[in-house]
């Protein structure tokens, strides 16, 4: 069964920006992020999965997109772009830029957990299912992420040691 243009437009409208920001923060390169989104959509078309709910569909797409990001990181041909240059087209104020830059400094496995929790509002058990880790691993990463985020932000922008 092929996917209709209407269905793909709906997916793009519902999840396009969400997937793009996850991919951009993971990959730090706009072209790579667009590729990851596109490949996630292609995966959707290939599978034409049946979902129990919109949330299920969203979680599936996040899972596929984060895996695409990892594939791209693994075999990447493009360089990461320095974060302030990358973010200048998106951020409305300096503080937002600083916050996202700090987030982008975190290790990848912590970054994705922070994104899913603080941006997409997923609970620990939901994140555990999406990224295929245990709940305690997710809790651990969140705790470490909060700590690292705060330390980095203070050090970088508040000039505290």
């Amino acid at each position, binding site marked *: 069964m092929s996917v209709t243009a209407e269905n793909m437009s709906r997916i793009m409208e519902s999840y396009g*920006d969400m997937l793009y920001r996850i991919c951009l923060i993971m990959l730090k390169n706009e072209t790579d992020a667009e590729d990851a989104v596109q490949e996630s959509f292609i995966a959707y078309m*290939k599978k034409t999965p049946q979902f129990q709910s919109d949330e299920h569909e969203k979680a599936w797409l996040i899972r596929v997109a*984060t895996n695409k990001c990892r594939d791209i990181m*693994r075999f990447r041909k493009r360089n990461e772009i320095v974060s302030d240059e990358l973010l200048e087209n998106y*951020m409305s104020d300096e503080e937002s830029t600083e916050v996202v830059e700090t987030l982008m400094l975190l290790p990848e496995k912590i970054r994705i957990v922070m994104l899913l929790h603080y941006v997409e509002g997923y609970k620990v058990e939901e994140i555990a299912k999406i990224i*295929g880790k245990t709940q*305690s691993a997710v809790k651990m990463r969140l705790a*470490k992420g909060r700590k690292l985020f705060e330390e980095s932000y203070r050090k970088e922008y508040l000039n505290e040691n």
Partner: protein
Amino acid sequence: MKTDKIKSSVEQIGMSEQTKKEILDECMEYSDNPQEYESNRADYARPKRFSVALEIAACLVICGGVTGGYYALSYSTESPAADVVSESEISEASEEVDFAEAIVEGNESSFETDEWKIDFNEVFNNDFNVGYFDGEKAERYGIDESTKEEIRNVLKNSNITQKNIVSAGYDLHYPDKCYTLTFSDDEATFNIKLYEGYAYIEIDCQVGCQHNNGDVYFSPNEHHACVLSCDDIYLYDKIDKLCRLEGTSEESIISDNAIEPTTAFEETIAEPIKSESVIEPTTAVTENSERTEIYDRLNSLSYEPYTCDGLPEYELEAPDGTKYQFNFTDKWVWKNGREEAVLPNDLADSIRLEYIIYGEE
């Protein structure tokens, strides 16, 4: 606390309408046959040709029992995402088996042709990994570009042939899907910078080969991979554990004696070094003072109320009765089960070295 600002900041990021349209248009080009997309887009595809070659080579080695098999350096083509996404979602490049056939034939000269060199280079355009099996999931460590370059240069200047390549191993978790390749060369060891998983944390380790007679060096014969040195004691231990898997008891004893996580092997090893020379005896006095220092440092860490429920991997009881629990993976220490602190790397290393690697007296 700026975490409350993360959502509003990140949500400012989005695609332009033009970009969305372009992506949709490209997707819809493949709406009738999305599988075509893979073949038209191989940017991140894995070099299947080499993976097939390695699979066959690995089988040959395993079946033939060529080396007795300690497997530490490995080239894996498995996607890092394999633990998250289903196998079918991992793209597969088209298969080309000519190089594989060259290996099957066992014709050494075929490795010295231009074709071999091309394939050889292909390996190093991708990650060259160290794997570790931990009960359920294999962890992977990729080698950095500069090390790959270093290895390339050594190989280029040493007329390397099939004999120098120890195609050793398979993924312990997915034996049917993973392929490994171990190199050996009498003339060099490689100081390998490992990237932990996909967080890309650099860790300096040196992986070498160990002779059955106890000498530690890269040798084309009777070699066994082992960790020569590693700054991260925990990682050292993990890779060391991998090296010991499937070894005979005799070989394990040799490893016990020869592996020493110090800087003893940080310089390039041209001559075999006897294992005895790397054993640094530790005296009771040294141990006592080191352990006192460990407890002092543990006591002086900045503890906060317990907030998360990671699993302790090791426990210690200080002379004053304080109980410490450690998670070396994520570097946490818990004090009396009520407080937690970040475990500094050097302290974690000291604990592992003092209590785990050398063991309690």
